[in-house]
């Protein structure tokens, strides 16, 4: 390659991509969590000295780049549920799709629409065990619910109801955390029963769930 061409490419390089400015920045990292990288932090040797186990610690901060999905997560910060809609076939989604899923729509880019803060339970479960970061919040009622005219169901927690009182098809409202507690993540909101909804009478299944859930409340109290 001629030297003049290389020089020209170097000169123009900054124009090939535009870097956005990130003025609004927030960190929610708990105190004491440090990015230590990778470190061997201990070992154990069996009494017969035949077997060794080693302890490795790893802590790393990731950047999740939301790209075209960003309006959904920015919407959460603003207390809105943003959905998308296909300009050709009219299908609506939350969780959103930035391109239509119909093979007939040729991955057309979808439009953003603000969704109503109402939903319906599609299916549900009551969790008595979970991942490490969720243990202290047990028992958790997880519902898959359809928000507005979405063609898909979204998973989130249902609050404000006894675990045994959740029902298929029950009407819900979307409730956001106070603005200063929102992080632009899915847990910025949860579901609650729609105003005026009342649980149905006790049934054998409800009694069974109650029997299964009661020890979970006790177990959570023992967690440090």
């Amino acid at each position, binding site marked *: 390659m001629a030297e003049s061409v290389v020089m020209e490419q170097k000169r123009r390089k900054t124009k090939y991509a535009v870097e956005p400015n990130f003025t609004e920045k927030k960190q929610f990292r708990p105190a004491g969590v440090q990015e230590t990288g990778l470190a061997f932090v201990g070992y154990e040797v069996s009494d017969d000295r035949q077997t060794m186990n080693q302890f490795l610690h790893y802590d790393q901060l990731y950047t999740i780049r939301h790209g075209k999905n960003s309006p959904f997560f920015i919407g959460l910060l603003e207390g809105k549920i943003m959905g998308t809609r296909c300009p050709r076939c009219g299908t609506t989604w939350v969780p959103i799709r930035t391109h239509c899923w*119909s093979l007939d729509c040729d991955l057309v880019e979808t439009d953003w629409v603000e969704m109503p803060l109402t939903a319906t339970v599609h299916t549900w479960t009551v969790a008595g065990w979970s991942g490490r970061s969720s243990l202290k919040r047990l028992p958790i009622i997880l519902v898959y619910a359809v928000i507005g005219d979405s063609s898909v169901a979204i998973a989130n927690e249902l609050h404000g109801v006894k675990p045994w009182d959740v029902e298929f098809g029950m009407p819900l409202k979307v409730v956001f955390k106070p603005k200063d507690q929102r992080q632009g993540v899915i847990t910025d909101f949860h579901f609650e029963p729609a105003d005026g909804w009342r649980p149905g009478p006790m049934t054998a299944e409800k009694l069974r769930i109650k029997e299964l859930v009661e*020890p979970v409340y006790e177990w959570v109290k023992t967690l440090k």
Partner: protein
Amino acid sequence: MGERVCIVGGATTPFDYGATGFESIEGGAADCVREAMQDLPEFRLRDLDLMLYSHFSVHFGHQLAPEWIIHDHLGLAGLPHYRVENGGNTGGSALYAAALAVMSGHHKAVGIVGWETMDSVSQSQGSEFIALASDIRYELLVGGIYPIYYAAMANKWMKENHVTEEDVASIAAKNKNNAMDNPKAQWYRNEHRYITVDDVMKSRLIAYPIKKYDCSLMSRGVAFLIVCNEAYAKKVNPDGYVTVDGMGLSSCTIRAGDRINYPSWKERYGPGYPDMTEFAACRCSAEQAYKMAGIKDPLHQIDFGEIHDAFSTSEAQIYKALGLADGEHITQFLRDHSTHMDGQIPMNPGGGLLGYGHPVGATGLMSTIECYYQLAGMIPRKHLSTKTQVSNPECGIVNSHAGTGTSISNFILRRP
């Protein structure tokens, strides 16, 4: 159709968790290969012309490309190798890749080593690592781990199909009790007891309707399988090889809630299917495998299976997706104990994921190996007794399953 695909041998390490599982991944791989060599004296590692590695999560070992450690350790530098990763269907997908390699005629003998070391972190952290295969932006933070997603799907499926907690608890007890005849099974090695439906019903809540004993086991384990063409099979194991007569692989949405109106399913199976209840990728991949193997009536043409019972509920859902019973008959099918050892079509005589264990990358291979042992008449040597031996089987099905039903494969194995 290209070359006929055969299986001539394979072995697993014991599947363990915690205090009883110590082996390094390359040590475990060597143990499996050595056991396969004992079963198959004519087999030499130098006969292999491709190695595939079946491993799900590098989070557990904190080692990228850990297959490079195993491959090099086995003395195979120079041989082509790559890793297959496809969630819980990693083993099935590696078998699919090996079968394609043989079928094409490009490779004659393919080794597959699969493993997972899930006890390298705490149980709850391990659940969360696995759940990193859910969409972390939408599901991981909302209390989400796989048992919760599966419970939400199963809850609706059970209601709509009139299947009770007791019906699926019977599957859990069956598989764990089958594992009591299998010295490599984690249930045999760790909890080591026969259980009843009542024990399952009384075990702690994981996510309604799933209890602790309805769940498969997190495991450390390694498996090795040899897939080859028929000429090689006849050379090294003329009396004990089996053929892979059918195979299918299919996919579904990552988030279970996204499949209730998915256009390609609507196009294939009509509206309302799979909802959040049916494993469409299981039905679709089974249809492919059945077509290839000439199976029109699976319940009568298949003698037994080793299938992906990540949860007792999912085993029941899989029966339906495999076409063993429809919505009208599934309850009776379960209550007749059709899949118990003395039933019409025994499922998971080796113990399954509920009893043998579920070290993800090794799991599909373990199912294939158990199916192979049954067809090759090796159960009396591999299990503790013949009570988990299927009587004179000709045809078995292997099923491997990922995500929330996000990737599923099925294989039809037969005696030649």
